[in-house]
């Protein structure tokens, strides 16, 4: 069990560095507007440093923005908020007591007064006390006040996902719960350069957003991140690998596992197209539909349990749109329908082999 986790670790490390250059150069080019600037060597950052940079820029560019949460002042338990309190002062970067419901409710109020409130929930597993505030208050504020008020300046950041030893309460992927709530957006980055651009977009977007950060990649994912202020568009999925036989859709840390499966599938002569959804709500149906029209097959993978996971929504929507084009049932390779286990984590997770097997069965249906 320890070895397989280490192998997974190693594999992520191996895959994250060379592979992401493919998409990051595309993103960097898009960010610079494709203009003919000399490509200077951007510094390599890991995910938590990229997020830290994004927060520095966000606080710098808007004097009415605030970062708060449990333990953010000293830098945060994952070091994502390092240096913010020193640079911007305790009036703008401050600790809250241990009260998630209070943190989000407070953030909604702060945002309702026209400020940019960046609330941190220490682990996504702890977001549930705040669920009522997010679903019933944040998501419906603009709607129920007839656009008189809104809490668009609210962004809630939370580390999510498996980390190898997290167990029940440090590994959950709760994105599906929030995707069911019209009025908020749900965004999940896959890499450092993506995270910086997406987080800046989220903070500046005039809607309340829940931003899940894959904690496994905080230290592990390293790539070149442009130092300037740039945003990446929300609700636009990105095709990070082109192919012709099957479309794979995922988000966050799971993409690196799917990439490995794609490489293995290529050795078996299967050409896979891999799409990073990036924004789960509202999600880019057009890109996925166009891809499935090209390939005729779809596979979705996420760490959250399969029943009721967001893969179900993608599957249903694509079947509605592409029914006659589909050559095989939509496959979902996801976490099992159990609480996130401790010792059984390697069995629970949607691993490369499970995905590879599903790719083959779908292609050979």
């Amino acid at each position, binding site marked *: 069990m320890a070895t397989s986790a280490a192998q997974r670790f190693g594999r992520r490390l191996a895959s994250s560095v060379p592979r992401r250059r493919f998409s990051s150069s595309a993103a960097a080019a898009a960010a610079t507007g494709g203009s003919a600037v000399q490509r200077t060597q951007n510094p390599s950052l890991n995910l938590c440093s990229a997020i830290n940079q994004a927060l520095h820029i966000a606080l710098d560019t808007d004097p009415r923005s605030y970062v708060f949460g449990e333990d953010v002042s000293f830098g945060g338990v994952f070091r994502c908020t390092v240096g913010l309190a020193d640079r911007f002062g305790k009036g703008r970067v401050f600790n809250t*007591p*241990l009260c998630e419901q209070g943190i989000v409710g407070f953030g909604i109020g702060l945002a309702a007064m026209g400020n940019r409130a960046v609330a941190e929930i220490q682990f996504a597993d702890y977001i549930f006390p705040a669920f009522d505030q997010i679903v019933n208050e944040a998501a419906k504020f603009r709607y129920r006040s007839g656009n008189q008020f809104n809490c668009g300046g609210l962004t809630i950041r939370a580390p999510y996902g498996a980390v190898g030893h997290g167990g029940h309460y440090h590994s959950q992927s709760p994105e599906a719960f929030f995707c069911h709530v019209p009025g908020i957006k749900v965004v999940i980055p896959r890499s450092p350069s993506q995270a910086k651009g997406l987080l800046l977009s989220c903070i500046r977007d005039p809607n309340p957003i829940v931003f899940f950060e894959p904690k496994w990649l905080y230290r592990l994912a390293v790539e070149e991140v442009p130092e300037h202020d740039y945003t990446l568009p929300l609700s636009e999925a990105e095709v990070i690998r082109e192919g012709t036989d099957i479309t794979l859709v995922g988000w966050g840390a799971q993409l690196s596992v799917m990439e490995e499966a794609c490489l293995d599938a290529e050795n078996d002569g299967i050409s896979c197209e891999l799409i990073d959804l990036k924004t789960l709500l509202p999600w880019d149906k057009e890109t996925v539909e166009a891809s499935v029209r090209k390939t005729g097959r779809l596979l979705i993978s996420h760490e959250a349990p399969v029943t009721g996971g967001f893969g179900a929504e993608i599957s249903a929507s694509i079947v509605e749109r592409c029914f006659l084009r589909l050559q095989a049932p939509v496959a979902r390779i996801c976490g099992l329908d159990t609480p996130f286990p401790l010792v059984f984590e390697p069995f629970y997770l949607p691993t490369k082999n499970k995905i590879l097997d599903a790719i083959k069965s779908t292609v050979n249906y």
Partner: protein
Amino acid sequence: MALSRAASSPSRAALLKPLAAAISSSLFRRPISTDTTPITVETSVPFTAHRCEAPSRTVETTAEELVGFFRTMALMRRAEIAADSLYKAKLIRGFCHLYDGQEAVAIGMEAAITKKDCIITAYRDHCIYLGRGGTLLEVFAELMGRQAGCSKGKGGSMHFYKKDAGFYGGHGIVGAQIPLGIGLAFAQKYKKDESVSFALYGDGAANQGQLFEALNMAALWDLPAILVCENNHYGMGTAEWRAAKSPAYYKRGDYVPGLKVDGMDALAVKQACKFAKEHALKNGPIILEMDTYRYHGHSMSDPGSTYRTRDEISGVRQERDPIERIRKLVLSLDLATEKELKDIEKEVRKEVDDAIAQAKESPMPDPSELFTNVYVKGYGVESFGADRKEVRAVLP
């Protein structure tokens, strides 16, 4: 401090005299383990009360109880230190929150209640489990994720449970166990069996909204609930003065009476819990704030020295350590010799080592256990391995 007061103040000397006279002759030395003659001891500090009358500082105990305290606390301490080593050796994975320094709360509470009373706590639960009658084997096996563990290896450090002893666990989400504890108390009131529920939480959880919701319900419906704030002054790395406007957690209940207790004094804890149980059965909920301290960091990932000085930790260890306090008391009352106490510690060490060795032999849970106990029956979900042809099982 209590001991010197006990020895030197004239009123106390009068109480101790008969005992001292009896044991002055070594020929008539009573055996330490079975002596149940009541001894009276004064607690280290008086109780501070909120909306109730503080119980007396004078606690009744016996030699048997005191030596028992020493033994069990030494066992708890040894077990936690052993868990530290096992974690560093990567035999325990995941999270591990150690209780050393706070043993007096677990032991004092047990001394005041029965197994019909319920205890529910947060994730720092190893010693509470031991206090409720759990065995060392079950503790270490569960920590290492083995089948012989109290939760069959599926819970881990934060999820110890013992149904036959009324121990409702073991909870990872901060503060979530408090409303549960109130629910337990409601059931006990319904059953009319003179039992109470102790819902333990920390100074970090004291700022959670659900605590106040639970207090309101308990007070409104007159439930036999005792909410115990184990105030070790740090919520993970945040000192209480940075997290709480009012660090007087025993007063936070407002309309609910409260008592502040020296949580490093096992006898004070016992007295407070006894008082609280009587109070809860007659008058409804009460809050106990245990002023205690943890030597380790929040968990094994926390060195525990970045937000407090090593001097502070060693200061508490020297002046307020619960085991040392009992040791001094036992020695001053001549209930055992130094050597006997050291022998107890050696025995305890051996017990812990034996339990660890036995736990290491226990196997990991079978992979099929991944799917058991999600539902009771009839879920019928399919699960299959990488090769879709085999290992297709309908989940129970």
